C-alpha cells in the first residue's frame, strides 16, 4: 500500500538525517521526508496543503538550508563530532521511552469514519475558512513574518561607526 511505502521511506530518511556525517546528506534526507509527507497529505484529502508543503517547505526552507550549508563550507574534520557514551545512551533510552509511551497512548484511540468529504482540502474551502474564522491568526502570522525579517536584518546590521554589532 502507498501508505506503507511512504511511512517506511519517511522513517528511513529520518534516521539518515539524524545519523549522517555530512550535512548535505542530511538536507537531502529531510527533503525526501517532506516529499513523502506531501504524498501522505494527498492521501488524506489535503491536496492544497500538499502543494503548499512542496512549494514552501521543500522549495524555500530546504533551499535556504542548502544555501547555508554551502555558504559555511564545512570541512570534514569540522563536522566530526563525539558524544559521550553515557549521554548517547541516555538519549536513546529517552527516545525509546517516548515511543513506548506515545505508542501505548495511540493504540487506545478508536476513531474511524466512513464519511468522505470530497472537497475537504480544496483551496476554496481552506481559503474560505482561513479568511472567515481564522482571520486573526492570519494577521498575526503576517506580523510574525515581518518581525522575522526585521530580526534577521538587525542581526547583520553594521553599526553607525562602521563596526559590526556582536
Amino acid at each position, binding site marked *: *500500500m502507498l*501508505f506503507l511505502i511512504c511511512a517506511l521511506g*519517511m*522513517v528511513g530518511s*529520518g*534516521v539518515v*538525517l*539524524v545519523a549522517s556525517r555530512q*550535512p548535505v546528506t*542530511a538536507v537531502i534526507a*529531510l527533503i525526501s*521526508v517532506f516529499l513523502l509527507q506531501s504524498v*501522505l497529505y494527498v492521501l*488524506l484529502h*489535503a491536496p492544497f*496543503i500538499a502543494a*503548499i*508543503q512542496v512549494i*514552501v*517547505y521543500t522549495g524555500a*526552507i530546504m533551499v*535556504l*538550508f542548502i544555501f*547555508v*550549508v554551502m555558504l*559555511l563550507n564545512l570541512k570534514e574534520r*569540522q*563536522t566530526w*563530532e563525539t558524544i559521550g557514551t553515557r*549521554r*548517547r545512551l541516555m*538519549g*536513546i533510552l*529517552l*527516545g525509546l521511552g*517516548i*515511543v513506548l509511551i*506515545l*505508542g501505548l497512548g*495511540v*493504540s487506545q*484511540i478508536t*476513531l*474511524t*469514519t466512513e464519511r468522505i468529504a470530497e472537497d*475537504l*482540502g480544496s483551496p476554496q*474551502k*481552506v481559503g474560505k*475558512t482561513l479568511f472567515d*474564522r*481564522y482571520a486573526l*491568526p*492570519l494577521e498575526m*502570522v503576517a506580523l*510574525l513574518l515581518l*518581525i*522575522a*525579517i526585521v530580526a534577521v536584518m538587525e*542581526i547583520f546590521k553594521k553599526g553607525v561607526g562602521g563596526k559590526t554589532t556582536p
Partner: protein
Amino acid sequence: MVPLNWYLLLAFLMFTIGIMGVLLRRNVLIVLMSIELMLNSANLVFIVFSRYLLNVGGQVMVLLVIAVAAAEVAVGLGIVVALYRHIHSVDLEKVNLMKW
C-alpha cells in the same frame, strides 16, 4: 482505508526521531533540521485529525504552522551564520561562554 492509529504512530515515530536528533547531535544545522522534522510530524497529526473529524480547521492550522516554521528557520539560520563568523565552527559544544 488506513486506520487512524497508523498515521499517528508514524507521526510519533518521526517526532521521536526528531527529538533524538536534537539531543544526540552537536552540529547545529542537524539540530535545526531535527526541529523541522518535529514540526513536520505535528503537521501530520493536524492533517490526520482534520481528515478524520472532517474539520478543515486542521489544514488551516498547518498553513499557519508552515509559515511560522519558515520564519523560525530564517531567524535560526541567520543566528547560525552570525555565530559561525565568530567561532568559525558549527559545533554546539563550542558555544559555552555562558556555561558555569
